[in-house]
């Protein structure tokens, strides 16, 4: 009888891999000014922001890597990035916004 390894991998099995430890910050959804544009929800590379209502979104922190796109995209500043406990603001890597460094 033939035997197989890694021939069929279960769909959606990546959900077992929590990527929360990647981040130094996470978004806080203030749910105060939200206009329901869905830019946070559609812009999340992980797919870990979910919609609770027409103007209510929140994040499943199991998978958030803290990229900050949601907060950056929100047109009404209703999302704020806060540092993880024990994390410090990273030193500017030189070459981000407006830098002329090599």
């Amino acid at each position, binding site marked *: 009888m*033939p035997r197989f390894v890694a*021939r069929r991998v279960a769909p959606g099995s990546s959900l077992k891999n929590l990527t929360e430890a990647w981040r130094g910050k996470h978004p806080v959804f203030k749910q105060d000014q939200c206009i329901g544009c869905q830019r946070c929800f559609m812009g999340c590379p992980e797919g870990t922001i979910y919609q609770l209502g027409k103007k209510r979104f929140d994040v499943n922190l199991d998978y958030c890597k803290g990229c900050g796109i949601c907060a950056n995209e929100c047109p009404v500043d209703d999302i704020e990035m806060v540092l993880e406990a024990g994390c410090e603001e990273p030193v500017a890597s030189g070459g981000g916004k407006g830098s002329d460094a090599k």
Partner: protein
Amino acid sequence: MISMLEGSKAVAEAVRLCRPNLVCAYPITPQTHIVEELSRMVADGRLHAGYVLAESEFGAASIVLGGSAVGGRTYTATSSQGLLLMTEVMFNIAGLRLPVVMTCANRAVSAPINIWNDQQDAVSIRDSGWIQLFVEDNQEAIDTHIQAFKIAEQSMIPVMVCMDGYVLTHTLEPVEVPEQEKVDNFLPPYNPSYRLDPNDPFTMGSMVGPDAYMETRYNMHNDMMDARLLIERVARDYEAEFGRWHGGLVETYDMEGADLVLVSMGSLLGTMRDATDELRREGLKVGLLKIRCFRPFPINAVHDAIKDIEVVGVIEKDISLGLEGTLCSEMRSAFCGEESPDISSFVMGLGGRDITVDEIKQVARDLANNPSCRVEFRGLNEELIRGDEH
């Protein structure tokens, strides 16, 4: 009913009888007649299969991979340069455990470019994880292609049927084409659960790291070794159903009391049988060993066939440059750490050079006189060897 059929057409008939869902190949001499015949069959409605005209052999192999991945029975054919071009996909198909069947119309490889028959192409990718069967004549080509689909689908290992280009593909021989009903009986429809289907989604072709890659390869190897029994069994089942036997993994000829055995693969065996008969009449006790299954290599069958023989000569149409003929090296592996016959490598017929009965007889006589282990190219033009750049 016996028909006079060109080897290529005979293969096309066999493939048609197996009811493939998808046929896709890129033309290359000397395989062209096979794919042309199949396309004629599709155009006339004799073969109901998807027929895709690929942009290269690489594309063709990838296309049949895709077809097999959705549960289709798929077929392709190639030779020489085409086989080398699709090598990446060959390893991929084997690793994905897809039961693709292909014909390799054996042809020499570039450079220099040469379109005539030798077996360098197929032996060069013997590590790929494909089962490789070599056929001796056009009848065996028909029968082996039908067996190939069954072997592939039961083992989930792709199968390559090798037939000597031009020598078999372009030669008319009397053959019996089996009846559709009998083939349907022998080869049920392919209906795997292992297929891409929105109703049962899964991921095929993961990246596997050092933590699991070895185990996948181990299983592939093991399953290949187990396939030796399967290949033998399918050949016997075929004999029971259709009444024809061409050997299982190997076949022997006239081994009774043999002092010396000659070994080969493919169409040359036909000529060697004649040579053996003549040598026996001349008083030289020669036997023949036909290697029908090259991968998985039948070490046990080979061992048993020649363990009591003192001198063995492997005549083959390939050379692993820097060592010897590959079949010869493989033969030696059947005798690990124990006393083995003296096994010599005779490289002949490269690039389509004809091999005559007399040349084969001379090999046997030379071996009888001097049985020492050696590697020899036979039938060389001494003048040319000296080089042509003066």
